[in-house]
């Protein structure tokens, strides 16, 4: 299937001389949730703003659902929606007025039933006649999402959707994103909560200093780069790893009271049973044990720090 969004050779140098993006190539598959990760200032928002038409690229070409975003901006933008990072709302207007404006701007006729559906799905229906300035921060964020959904987009950009949002709203947001994906909307989100990407994304892209350094299926990425570790709390501290245990990739930590075994979680034999047997044989006793799989966060931190 052809990608719904294809970004090729996109660079951006701001008039201040700051090079925010360096020749980015990226294809987004139809119907996926794509998470764009990167530290602050990496170029995530610049990339999104270019696709949405808010920032003009210095070079490159972008095609959204078959339409060039510059030559055929009308058809392209008709299908794209953005929820920006900064809270920006029509403070003096009511929720309904603001959402209705969004739908019209994107070339759709007034349709009260649809607006009601969107507002209900974001639990904003009760607040529909309230002025936006009277709402809480989380509610304002919901209004911004309602505005983006009001014109039934096929591609939805969520720029840091859960920054500064409480746990409950974050969970709601995740459910909503999944529900939209089920309805066929392609979602591209940026985040620096890795937990979020891990929870939601089908694929992950990592951007650092304006370069896209990695694009991978989330599960493949976590398999490839994710390590598994077994941690053993010893009864008695050791001075060194006993030579009898040299066959295992062991490390002694925490003043000799913790033994850490790093192994390949995908291998047929993890080596754990034999390690534990050998330890019993040589009389190294442990009082507790746990295993840990490296998270996307660990992977991300190591990727970005490698490039510094």
């Amino acid at each position: 299937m052809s990608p719904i969004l294809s970004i090729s050779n996109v660079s951006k140098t701001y008039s201040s001389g700051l090079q925010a993006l360096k020749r980015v190539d990226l294809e987004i598959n139809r119907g996926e949730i794509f998470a764009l990760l990167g530290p602050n200032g990496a170029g995530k928002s610049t990339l999104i703003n270019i696709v949405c038409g808010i920032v003009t690229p210095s070079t490159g070409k972008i095609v959204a659902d078959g339409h060039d975003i510059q030559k055929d901006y009308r058809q392209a933008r008709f299908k794209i929606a953005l929820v920006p990072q900064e809270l920006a709302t029509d403070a003096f207007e009511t929720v309904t007025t603001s959402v209705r404006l969004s739908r019209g701007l994107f070339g759709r006729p007034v349709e009260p039933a649809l607006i009601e559906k969107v507002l209900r799905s974001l639990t904003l229906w009760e607040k529909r006649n309230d002025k936006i300035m009277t709402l809480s921060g989380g509610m304002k964020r919901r209004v911004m999402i309602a505005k983006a959904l009001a014109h039934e987009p096929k591609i939805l950009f969520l720029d840091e959707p859960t920054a500064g949002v409480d746990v409950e709203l974050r969970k709601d947001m995740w459910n909503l994103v999944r529900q939209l994906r089920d309805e066929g909307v392609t979602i591209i989100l940026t985040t620096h909560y890795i937990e979020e990407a891990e929870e939601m994304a089908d694929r992950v892209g990592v951007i650092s200093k304006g370069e896209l350094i990695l694009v991978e299926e989330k599960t493949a990425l976590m398999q490839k780069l994710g390590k598994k570790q077994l941690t053993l709390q010893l009864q008695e501290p050791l001075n060194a790893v006993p030579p009898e245990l040299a066959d295992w990739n062991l490390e002694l930590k925490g003043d000799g009271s913790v033994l850490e075994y790093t192994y390949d979680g995908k291998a047929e034999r993890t080596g754990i049973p034999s390690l534990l047997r050998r330890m019993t044989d040589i009389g190294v006793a442990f009082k507790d044990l746990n295993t840990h799989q490296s998270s996307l966060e660990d992977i991300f931190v190591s990727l970005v720090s490698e490039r510094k």
Partner: protein
Amino acid sequence: MSGEQQILGFNRYGVWAIFRFEMARFLRTAGQSILTPVLTTSLYFVVFGSAIGGRMSEVGGVPYGAFIVPGMIMLTILAESMSNGSFGIYFPKFTGTIYELLSAPISPVETVLGYVGAAATKSVILGLIILTTSTFFVDLQIRHPIAMIAFLVLTSATFALLGFITGIWAKSFEQLSFIPMLVVTPLTFLGGAFYSIDMLPGAWRTITLFNPIVYIISAFRWCFYGTSDVGVEVSMLMTAIFFLGGLAAVSWIFKTGYRLKN
């Protein structure tokens, strides 16, 4: 979600949405929006009409009280068109909601139609309110009613457009009020709103002719009384040139993204 859908060649829903949104703000404060011009007009009549008009019976065959009506309407129209036109686009820039307009499938022409159309409509409504209020104080005659309405609309649209450009240019609320307060209002007062420029001494009269607003007020007064300080054709031409100049500036702004886009 809907299947394959395309947007129309002209985003009429977008234009209408902006227009409706902008008019809603005006109507929400309708009491204030209507009361202010009515009160101001009445004050002008008290000060200029009664106090000064008592000593000055006629200007060019028109009673002074009636003579000031076109200038008074213009004084409000020019200022209100500019401030409405500029506020409509400046406010989204200020709050950050401009992102939506920039990412919407709406062309510059459609954007201008929505914002400037709404600002001009408000001004025309205000103009008609002032006109109506005036009839309580003086006997008015309108010799060329169609030309009067056409000119009212053209002037409102022109200054709303100039306001729109100011709104894009402005980086602060101070800059936003700078041009209406420090340029347009003084030029209107000096542009013959309350006197005929024939009443000025020679040198001042020549200087006054460099003030573009003289032409606007003069043409508008012609619509009422059939007399004007300068040629009506020149006035109409000047206003049309302003309007076209404004359109050219706006299309350049959207092409380059000046103060809107990076």
